[in-house]
C-alpha cells in the first residue's frame, strides 16, 4: 500500500539524516579538538560533555527514528522485499557440487588443523593468543 511505502521512505530519510548528523558531529568535535590540541598538546579532543552535547542536538531525530522503528512492525510495515535479484539473468543454474574426493580433502585438512593446534600449543602461539586477548590494546579498538 502507498502509505507503507511512504513510511519506509520517510524512515529511510530520517535514519540517513541521523547517521549523517552523528558522523558530522564526531568530525566537528575532532576538528575543534585538533585546533585546541595544536595549542595545548595535552588538551582532550573528546570529552563526555562534548559528546553529550552532540547527542542532545540530534535527540529529536534519534527519538523519531526509535519510535518509527518500533511502530513499523506494529503497523505491519516491514522491510521492503530484497530477496529477489533485480533481473532473471542474475540467477544461474544450480550447480551441485561434486562429492568426489571431498572426504579425502576434509580428512587431510582436519588432520592438518589438529597438527597446527598441537604445534601452536607447543611453540607458545597459544599463549600469545591468551596474552593479546586478556590485555586491551587501545589503538586496536579505535580508542587511540
Amino acid at each position: 500500500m502507498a502509505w507503507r511505502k511512504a513510511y519506509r521512505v520517510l524512515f529511510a530519510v530520517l535514519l540517513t539524516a541521523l547517521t549523517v548528523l552523528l558522523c558530522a558531529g564526531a568530525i566537528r568535535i575532532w576538528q575543534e579538538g585538533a585546533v585546541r590540541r595544536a595549542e595545548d598538546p595535552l588538551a582532550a579532543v573528546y570529552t563526555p560533555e562534548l559528546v553529550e552535547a552532540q547527542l542532545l542536538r540530534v535527540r529529536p531525530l534519534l527519538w523519531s527514528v526509535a519510535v518509527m522503528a518500533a511502530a513499523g512492525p506494529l503497523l505491519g510495515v516491514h522491510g521492503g522485499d530484497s530477496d529477489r535479484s533485480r533481473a532473471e539473468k542474475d540467477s544461474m543454474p544450480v550447480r551441485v557440487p561434486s562429492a568426489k574426493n571431498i572426504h579425502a580433502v576434509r580428512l587431510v585438512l582436519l588432520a592438518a588443523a589438529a597438527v597446527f593446534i598441537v604445534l601452536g600449543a607447543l611453540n607458545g602461539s597459544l599463549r600469545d593468543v591468551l596474552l593479546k586477548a586478556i590485555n586491551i590494546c587501545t589503538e586496536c579498538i579505535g580508542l587511540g
Partner: protein
Amino acid sequence: MDKMRRETWWQRHRPTTRRLVQVYSALLYNAHLKGFVTGEIYRGPAKALCVPGLNCYSCPGAVAACPLGALQNALASTGHRAGWYVLGILLLCGVMLGRTVCSWLCPLGWLQELLHKLPTPKLRKSAVTRALTWLKYIVLAVFVIALPLWYGLAQDMPLPAFCKYICPAGTLEGAMGLLPTHRDFFGMLGVLFTQKYVIMLVVGLACVFCYRSFCRFLCPLGAIYGLFNRFSVVGVRVDPNRCSQCGACVRHCEMDIRSVGDRECIHCGKCMAHCSQGAISLQAGKLTLMAPELPGKETAPEAHRKQKALGRALWGAALAVLCFALLWFNVLDPASAKETEPRWESDAPVGWEVGQQLEDFTADCLDSSVFHLAEHRGEVVFINLWATWCTPCVHELPFFDVLAREKADAAVLAIHSALVTDDPAAYLADKGYTIPFATDTEDERLFRLVNGSATLPQTIVLNRSGEVVYNQVGSVTIEALEALYDTAAAEP
C-alpha cells in the same frame, strides 16, 4: 489468508531455530556480563580459545578470543614465532563449518540481520553487489595479511591493521563497551576514533538498506571461511536427483551466490522454503540437521517424535552449558573473582593519583642497573608502561628516548608488562635506546604502584617533589611529552 487468521501471534512471530542459535552464541561468547557493568574485561584462561565468529576480545563481556584479531597478531609476530595455533583453529572451523559460522554463529551477522529488519526500502542484489563481494578478499589480503606481516617483519611493530582501521565490531563492542565505564578513556580519543566511529555508523546504515553489507563486502573472516565452503562438513546440500535446476534457490537468496554452497553461501537454509522439489537440506556430513517436509512425504510419526525429543535434549544441554558459562564467568571463575578486588588497594598505598606522592620503589633494569625512585627527587620523572606486543607502546618509545636525551633533568623509566611474549632485552637490542628498561615482576608490583592495568600504554609523570602530575592511559606524542615536562618542571 485463513491460515494466517488461524495462527496465533506467537506462531507468526516466534524466532526460528537459526535466530535462537544466533542469540545463544552471542550470549555464550559474551558470557562475562558483569564486565559491562564493571568495565573490566575477562582475563581468565578461556581467552586462549578462539570463537568461530567475529567477536572483539576487548569487549567487556567476551570470554574468548576473536580469530581475526588473533590471526593478525600471529602474522605480526611471524618473525618471532609462527602462529600455528590460530591457523589450526581457522582451518578447523573452516573445514567443520565453512560459512555456516556467518549465518548461525556470528554475533555481528545477527546484528546485521536485525538492522536489515528496519522498515526501509531495500537494495536488491545485482551484478554490482556481486562484484563488491571481491572487496572482502582485498581487505583480507591488505589489512589482515600484508600490513601485519610487513610491520611485524620489517619494522618489528605489531599492527593488527583490520582491527585498528576498519573493524566495526571492535568499535562497537570494544570502544563503545568500555567508554561508558572508563570516562578517563575520553582523553585518548582523536582522529583514529573519529575514523572508526564514522566507519561503524556507515556500515550500520548500509546494513539497514542492503542485507548483511559488512558480511558480503568487507568481512575478511567470511572471506576465509568462504574458501572452505565446498569442503565444510556442515552446510546446505542439494540433492542432485531431486533438483530441477529451476534456480529458485539462487533467485531468492539474499547473498550474492551463483550456486547453493558456493563461496558466498552462508548456509542459512532459507532456500529450503523456496525449493519446490525439497532438494535442499542442511547437513552435517551424512546426518540431516534440517530438511523441508514435502506434502505426501511427511516424516513418520514415530520418527518425528524421536526427532523432537532429540531436539529438546540438545536444546536442554545447550541451555545447561549457557547457564554454567554465565555462572562460571561471572561468579565462580577465580580469574573473574580477582578482578573485583581493586588491583591497587591490596598491597600499594594510595599514591598514584594526580597530586599524590608516588610510593618509593626500586626496579631491576635490563642493563643490570637499578632504578631507585628516591634517587631521582629533584628531577622530572617519566614512567612509561609498555609491552612489545602493544603497537602504540612501541611507536611512542622513541619519544621517551628523545625526551631523556634532550632534558638533562628528566629521568625516564620504561616498565614492560609482566606478560611477556617476546624477550624485551632481545627486542630492544638493536634499537639503540638510552633510557632504562625494566620488566614488571610476576605479581605486577610495579604496575600496581602506578595503577597500571591491562590497558596499554600508560604514562605517569612526577614533578621534582615526586608528586604525580599526570597518570593517563593512551598514546602520547613528543609534543605532549614536552608539554608535560614543562608543566612538571614548573611545579616545585
